[in-house]
């Protein structure tokens, strides 16, 4: 059944009413299980609260931290807090939530995009030219294992406060590992593909543009997806350590004001955002890489 689904996901295939129904049912079933899973987790938490094991002041259960959303939203006004002389005329609490989410998301997205583009460029360059390999690869390999947290001071030295340091942190966290996996992907390209192109008279440049790059794209998108969660982690750390405003800043504020409800509320937001992002990338994968069966896309192969 999932094979049939995969086929009907492909853009050119027109959906018959019956198949559309089956597709919707598939979605419904998956959504149902997801809700059940989250629901059971919440229920367990509520139960622990009920029997007094979960201290309401430290681990407020979902009905408390989700119970007063309007109150929570007011704390998101940190979006304006750092702008001096703009007091009173800031955004409404709801606008503040929106701004905070958008700015964190935009940083993740910008960092991901920059790191993805740069690592494809550098990775392909390293395999394309022996000189590039000799000059660049050792440095990349040396810097790859360094934790991105170590770059945090550098980010602040270079970019001060605002979007710059957060984007830089995401970029640094992803660039080196993604460059190395680009190289690994290139090395794993089927030799037959390259030999076919060679027997047909392809130049080295054509082998790269017409064979190697399309062949490594699926693997690269998977790498991008896997690094998405890393990007979120780094962006929160960058924001929390005073790099600017954003979801990380809200969590820091919650810590400083001892507000566990706000922490869990923000965690719930971040979880939903990460899930949504992953879903979007999966859609992108299915559209862009129509030649990979969807089952493989989901399994991350």
């Amino acid at each position, binding site marked *: 059944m999932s094979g049939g689904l995969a086929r009907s996901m492909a853009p050119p295939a027109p959906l018959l009413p019956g198949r559309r129904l089956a597709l919707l049912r598939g979605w419904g079933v998956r959504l149902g299980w997801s809700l059940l899973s989250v629901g059971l987790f919440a229920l367990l938490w509520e139960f622990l609260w009920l029997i007094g094991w979960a201290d309401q002041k430290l681990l407020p259960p979902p009905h408390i931290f989700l119970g007063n959303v309007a109150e929570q939203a007011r704390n998101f006004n940190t979006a304006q807090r750092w702008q001096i002389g703009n007091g009173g005329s800031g955004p409404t609490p709801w606008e503040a939530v929106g701004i905070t989410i958008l700015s964190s998301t935009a940083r993740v997205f910008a960092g991901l995009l920059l790191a993805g583009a740069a690592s494809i460029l550098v990775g392909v360059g390293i395999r394309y030219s022996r000189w590039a390999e000799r000059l660049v690869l050792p440095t990349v390999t040396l810097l790859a294992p360094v934790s991105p947290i170590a770059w945090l001071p550098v980010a602040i030295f270079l970019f001060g406060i605002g979007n710059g340091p957060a984007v830089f942190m995401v970029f640094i966290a992803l660039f080196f590992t993604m460059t190395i996996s680009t190289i690994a992907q290139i090395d794993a390209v*089927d030799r*037959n*593909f390259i*030999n*076919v*192109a*060679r*027997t*047909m*008279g*392809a*130049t080295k440049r*054509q082998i790269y543009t*017409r*064979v190697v790059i*399309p*062949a490594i794209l699926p693997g690269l998108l998977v790498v991008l997806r896997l690094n998405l969660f890393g990007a979120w982690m780094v962006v929160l750390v960058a924001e929390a350590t005073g790099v600017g405003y954003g979801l990380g800043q809200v969590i820091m504020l919650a810590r400083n004001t001892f507000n566990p409800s706000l922490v869990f509320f923000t965690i719930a937001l971040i979880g939903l955002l990460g899930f949504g992002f992953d879903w979007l990338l999966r859609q992108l994968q299915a559209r862009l*890489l*129509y*030649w*990979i*069966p969807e089952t493989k896309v989901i399994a991350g192969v």
Partner: protein
Amino acid sequence: MSDPAILCQGLGKTWNAGTARAHEALRNIDLAVRPGEFVVLLGPSGCGKSSLLYLIAGLEQHNAGTLRAFGEAVTGPSPDRSLIFQQTSLFPWLTVWQNVTFGLSLRGDGAAQRRAVAREALSRVGLADAMDKRPDELSGGMRQRVAVARALAMRPRVLLMDEPFAALDVQTRAKMQDFLLDVWHSSGASVLFVTHGIDEAVALADRIVVFTARPGRIKAIVPVDLPRPRDMFSRAAEALRQQLSGLLRDEVDRAFAEQEALASA
């Protein structure tokens, strides 16, 4: 008189030559393939017959002897010599017709012209309807036919085939052999076909080149003068099969003995 399509004289190939992992794959190969001739290279696994094909394709460099195609030294790959691989190597991100004309697109030919070439090449392999399909929508046999069409689209004078039907089931393989003979007749190209199947060699070849175990040398060249279409159950075909299996058995025994000696050393 015209030059042979392929001429090997004292041809040799050693992998990783000059290192500790040096491994002699081919030694002293003398072989001339006439234009339009169907030659089958037959031998046990690992005897270097595929290596010979890669040398002729120009994908690898030989390190002894000379190698000429239509009188010219082989220094690299050429669209004149198309190689068809054991695994289908169609690009999954291209449609069937784009795969077939990949080589033409490298030269910068326009899409309309390429579609026309693709239609013609695909109709020669009986797949004109599959133009706009994607490779993953085709069966294994159909994909191998597309690979043949892709080779034909370059109008090669030599078709090099590396166990192209090995991954197919027996019935499909028999059909593909008939189909290949038709294509060969109509294209006029020489074919060098690598296999380890005696039946396949008897069904296809004008001449069968039997290889020794490593290093690969030519043990015997057996002409096949059975009339086409061939009756694989005729007395002559049976005799030929027995002759070939006798030639091969020695080599397989020798390869086994060698491996055992290596294992016990």
